[in-house]
């Protein structure tokens, strides 16, 4: 009895396993169809299907279904079996009496119950997945989205074996030698660090200087194999059954193979392109640096140079070439040095990020000196490295003592009196004084400082005259107003006091000079014209202020700064006074330059020519000349054009190509290959077809049409040219013209 129960279980197990296997198969089919439709390559999809099925198999494990599992499953799904199906697996003899009873009972129940129990499976889901996948694949295939998705392997015309065509079509009937294998090996120049490449594709794209070698293996008797290229014909060496040849690539071009079999028939292959890539020079980029940087003398004169250098095969060297120019005019001196980057250069890297902090001070640069620098990089090309350099950058330390541009071409009138320059003198003296600090007694130091302060004052007063400040009193007034301004700026709270104190102090120390000065002013003012004291003549251009408003404001500022300079001198602080003096000097320089008046330069005025004397010169050595020249224009398309015309006639006739045609096409081919060097991809097919036209005995009209198409495309647009037109001029025209006149 239990045997029937066990049989049932075994049947159930088999059924379960079958369902799981089916599930696996469905998944596999689904993926197989999806990939198949999308890629169009059934081999790959088959492989993929197998992988998927293995994966699903590993998940589902149908072989792991044993009777134990089956009984458990059945027990779980039925409440009548009392979890006893496990008993059926045992021999009745092994069981106790109760167990045997139960076994028999269960066996009975099982035979009816098993029909209601389904093995655990996901067949529906699997089926749905398979249908869905197949549907998606078909949809993709139908809509054609796969055509340009790259999923589908595009058929590469060059990937296949070399296609040899017998030049004489009658040779087709005879067995032709078969190419067993072909191989092209590209050995890149060592510096590129590129591995050797072997391919069966005959179109070559390689770096300049690469060595290319070909291995052809023929099956059948071969007399000779040669390689025809733009450079000429090169026979391949025979080594056993292999034919070998190699060359070093220098220029782009085309080549094809030609072989002769033992019966003397020749065969040619398609034309293949050689595209030579030149090693590019390194590219240097400099970041965040202005082309022109200028520094004040008291700034931190540092330049932060960040550069990124890239190269296609690797950088060998990179450095900065810096040139310092000192002085100006004829006394200019240049000093060139090569600076290394702060970052270490790793040779052979394709991209380098290099940094350099240039301290202008450490380069012995003073005010007015200029630094020009650029980055130069070399790549690792051998034997001659590519070298490239960046733009030149400039850095200048401003020279505050500079006069600015001189006016050589015009005659400038310098309106400024000589003592304008004494600000410079003051600076020199102040500097001298500072350098003497500690060396001379404090008393002397202070008094010299005070003297300088007085000089500064008298300079200010002189400038004040230019401003139209007529008397000292008025200066004081203006000063107080400016002082107010200074207060606003919060420059120095002492200023108010120093001023008061200052005027007294001034009187004490240098009263003589000052008085004299003052008196003199008064005297001249009083002595010359007494009315002048009472009038303020703005109308007189001589006495009117000579500066425009902007200049006036500038001068006013200079005067104010001079105040500060004087203040610090009087306070015996020449160091603090110095920046003010510099500032004042700069402003005065500005004013001076802008106040220059340019006077029109007197040009050369030739004396009038006497008409009767004109063209009466001695013409003895001037001869009438004759010149004859024939200009040969080189039309690069002559043969191409003639070929197009000839092909049109051939197309409509018997397609018999004569020897003359062949040589014409050969010449057209040469012309076209000249064009093709610049653009090999575009003309390759046409060149191949032209080759066929010149070699093959029997041609088809499609070939002629294709060649013509390609040739027509290669001809550029014509430039406009005057042309001779023709016209019939009959009696009727004569009559009409006469009637019109």
């Amino acid at each position: 009895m239990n045997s029937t129960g066990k049989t049932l279980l075994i049947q159930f197990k088999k059924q379960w396993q079958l369902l799981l296997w089916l599930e696996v198969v469905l998944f596999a089919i689904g993926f197989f169809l999806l990939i198949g439709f999308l890629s169009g390559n059934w081999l790959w999809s088959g492989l993929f299907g197998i992988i998927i099925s293995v994966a699903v198999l590993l998940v589902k494990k149908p072989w792991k279904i044993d009777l134990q599992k089956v009984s458990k499953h059945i027990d779980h799904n039925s409440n009548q079996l009392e979890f006893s199906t496990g008993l059926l697996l045992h021999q009745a003899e092994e069981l106790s009496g109760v167990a045997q009873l139960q076994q028999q009972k269960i066996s009975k129940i099982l035979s009816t119950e098993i029909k209601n129990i389904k093995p655990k499976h996901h067949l529906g889901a699997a089926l749905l997945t398979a249908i869905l996948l197949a549907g998606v694949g078909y949809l993709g295939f139908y809509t054609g989205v796969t055509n340009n998705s790259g999923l589908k392997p595009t058929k590469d015309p060059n990937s296949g074996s070399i296609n040899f065509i017998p030049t004489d079509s009658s040779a087709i009937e005879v067995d032709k030698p078969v190419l067993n294998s072909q191989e092209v090996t590209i050995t890149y120049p060592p510096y590129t660090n590129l591995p050797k490449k072997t391919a069966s594709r005959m179109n070559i794209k390689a770096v300049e200087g690469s060595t290319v070698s070909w291995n052809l293996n023929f099956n059948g008797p071969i007399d000779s194999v040669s390689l025809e290229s733009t450079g000429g014909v090169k026979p391949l060496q025979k080594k056993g059954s292999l034919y070998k040849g190699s060359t070093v690539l220098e220029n782009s071009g085309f080549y094809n193979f030609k072989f002769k079999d033992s019966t003397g028939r020749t065969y040619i292959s398609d034309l293949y392109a050689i595209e030579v890539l030149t090693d590019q020079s390194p590219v240097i980029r400099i970041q965040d640096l202005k082309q022109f940087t200028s520094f004040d003398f008291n700034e931190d004169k540092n330049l932060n140079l960040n550069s990124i250098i890239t190269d296609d095969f690797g950088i060998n060297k990179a450095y900065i070439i810096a040139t310092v120019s000192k002085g100006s005019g004829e006394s200019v001196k240049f000093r060139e040095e090569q600076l290394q980057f702060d970052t270490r250069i790793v040779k052979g890297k394709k991209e380098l990020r290099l940094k350099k902090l240039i301290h202008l001070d450490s380069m012995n640069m003073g005010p007015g000196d200029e630094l020009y620098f650029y980055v130069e990089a070399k790549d690792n090309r051998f034997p001659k490295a590519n070298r490239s350099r960046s733009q030149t950058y400039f850095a200048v330390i401003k020279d505050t003592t500079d006069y600015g541009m001189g006016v050589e071409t015009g005659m400038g009138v310098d309106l400024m009196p000589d003592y304008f320059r004494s600000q410079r003198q003051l600076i020199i003296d102040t500097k001298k004084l500072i350098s003497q600090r500690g060396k001379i007694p404090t008393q002397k130091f202070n008094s010299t400082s005070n003297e300088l302060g007085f000089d500064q004052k008298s300079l200010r007063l002189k400038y004040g005259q230019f401003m139209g400040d007529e008397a000292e009193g008025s200066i004081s007034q203006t000063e107080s107003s400016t002082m107010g301004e200074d207060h606003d700026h919060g420059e120095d709270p002492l200023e108010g006091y120093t001023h008061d104190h200052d005027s007294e102090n001034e009187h004490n120390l240098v009263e003589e000079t000052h008085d004299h000065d003052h008196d003199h002013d008064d005297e001249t003012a009083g002595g010359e014209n007494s009315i002048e004291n009472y009038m303020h003549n703005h109308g007189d251009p001589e006495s009117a202020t000579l500066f425009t408003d902007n200049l006036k404001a500038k001068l006013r500022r200079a005067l104010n700064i001079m105040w500060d300079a004087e203040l610090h001198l009087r306070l015996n602080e020449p160091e603090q006074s110095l920046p003010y003096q510099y500032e004042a000097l700069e402003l005065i320089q500005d004013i001076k330059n802008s106040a220059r008046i340019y006077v029109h330069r007197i040009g050369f005025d030739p004396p009038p020519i006497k008409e009767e004397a004109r063209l009466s010169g001695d013409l003895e050595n001037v001869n009438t000349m004759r010149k004859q020249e024939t200009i040969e224009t080189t039309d690069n398309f002559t043969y191409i054009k003639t070929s197009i015309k000839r092909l049109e006639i051939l197309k409509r006739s018997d397609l018999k190509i004569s020897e003359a045609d062949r040589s014409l096409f050969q010449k057209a081919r040469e012309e076209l290959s000249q064009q093709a060097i610049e653009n090999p991809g575009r003309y390759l097919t046409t060149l191949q077809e032209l080759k066929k036209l010149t070699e093959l005995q029997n041609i088809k009209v499609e070939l002629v049409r294709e060649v013509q198409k390609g040739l027509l495309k290669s001809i550029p647009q014509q430039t406009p040219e005057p042309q001779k037109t023709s016209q019939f001029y009959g009696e009727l025209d004569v009559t009409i013209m006469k009637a019109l006149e």
Partner: protein
Amino acid sequence: MNTSLTFLNSSWFWPALVGWLILMLVFFWKEWKTSGRHRLVLKMLLAGIALTSLLLVILEPALEKPAKDKVIILITEHFDQDQLDSLQKKHKEAMLIDYRQEQDLLNLKEASQIFVLGSGLADYDLHLLENLHVDFLPGQFTPGIIKLNYNKQNQTGDILNIRGEFVRPTSGRKLFLEDAAGNALDSVKLSPGQSQQFSLSTPLKVQGDYIYKLSEKDSTGQLIKSDPLPLSAYTSKPLDILIFAYQPTFEIKYLKNFLAEQEHALAVKSRITRNRFKYEYFNRPKKNISRFNSAMLEDFDLLIIDKASLKSISASQQITLLRSIENDGLGLLMLGNTEDSGLNPGLKDILFETDRTSEVTLNHLPEESFSKEAFKLQPKFGLKEIHKSDSDIISAYYRKGKGRIGTTVLTQTWQLKLEGKEEAYQQVWSELLEQLSKRESQTIIWTAMQQFAFIDEPFKFELQTSIKDPKVWTEEKYQVPLRQDLYIPERWKTRIYPKTLGWHELKAEQDSLSVFKYYVHQNQDWKNIIAYQNRENNKRFFSEQQVEKNQETNLAAIHPIWFFIVFLLAIGGLWFEPKL
């Protein structure tokens, strides 16, 4: 009923009548002799009836009856089926002739009414319908090109312009102009509507005879229809130009270089200083060009001269120059616009107006600006403009005899060349020189009177020539008969019947250089255009001839049996009468 009796054998009327009279007299005499007055009248009556019957048997009297209408329906290309159906309903016995299947057209004359359906008959068949009552019912065109215009003879470098009209275009389709090998050169998108004018153009690059194509393609690039466009391109001969310069200028220098590089022949005379000249010859042998004479000028197609030089030559030489222009067709381009005084009046027909603008853009080159002198040309009858800026004339010429005299106010054009605007420079000068240069004289002008030639169909053409008795030969060495025009003796007309497809040539015996090339199309080419042309021709033809519907009458002969019966009865009466 206005039926009248006629005799079919009316020519026998009088002899038969005489015979009848004689027989009557003989009978009367015989009766008179034999039976005297007895029943003479009755007998005479019977005899009269019998003889008259006999007479009528001979003369065959016929009654004029209105003939039954004979309607012919002639269907041609693009006929409307609905029209045909309704016509056939109305004229049940109408005879249907399909013109497309080349059915016999000889019995058209019998029809009382002819309906021509569709686009109509070919030009050469229209005479069959002359003086017949025809109703022309043109049908609708199928979509396609119905008008086409382009130059079949071109020079290389010319722009080939193709203009036409497309009826009932389908949206989304495109019309492509393809070259001889099938490269698409230009295209135009068709937009839906009743008809669309289109224009396609391409520069011609190569010399030779080619078959371009006009192809209609749908949005997926599928070819719908393609028709051939035969055309020839030939290279023109280089020009031979003479340049006189009063002093060396950049303008002349650059112009000289431009022309010499284009392989034109040049002779340049430029004054270096007083009585010293520089003579330059490019692409031509040396020649004495110091003085104008007709022999010297004869060689040249164009003289470019500045006014200062022109003024410096003597009055007699100026006249020589004018003669050359008038008689030989020499072109003259005057540069510089200084005063005209000192010039022969024949040379100063172009008047200037002051125009202060110094920069100008030409209408056909709106992107470039040209510098010009402070003048423009005054419009005048006979002045043909070459360059215009808006309505101002910049360059122009007028005709003088066979030649042309022109000028331009453009100046310093060489600066364009320096600015890299080579194309604009070349275009402006090409236009100027081409318009002014001497035309190569043609001895024969061939003009096809039809747009297309088809196999086995007449192809009409004309030639215009001053040759007295031109003879034209085909390639197969058959002479083509020519018919001289009645009013213009220089014009000759003829027609030929091409037998093979493709390019054909006709040559004139007197001028071996003059060749007429024509392309013979297949019959299915350009069907729509042919249909359109036929329709227009037919419309014109039928509107010119207004023939009334001829109500034709037929003569129905009275069957002679009736007369024979009357004769028998009468004779029977005569036989029976003595028995009474």
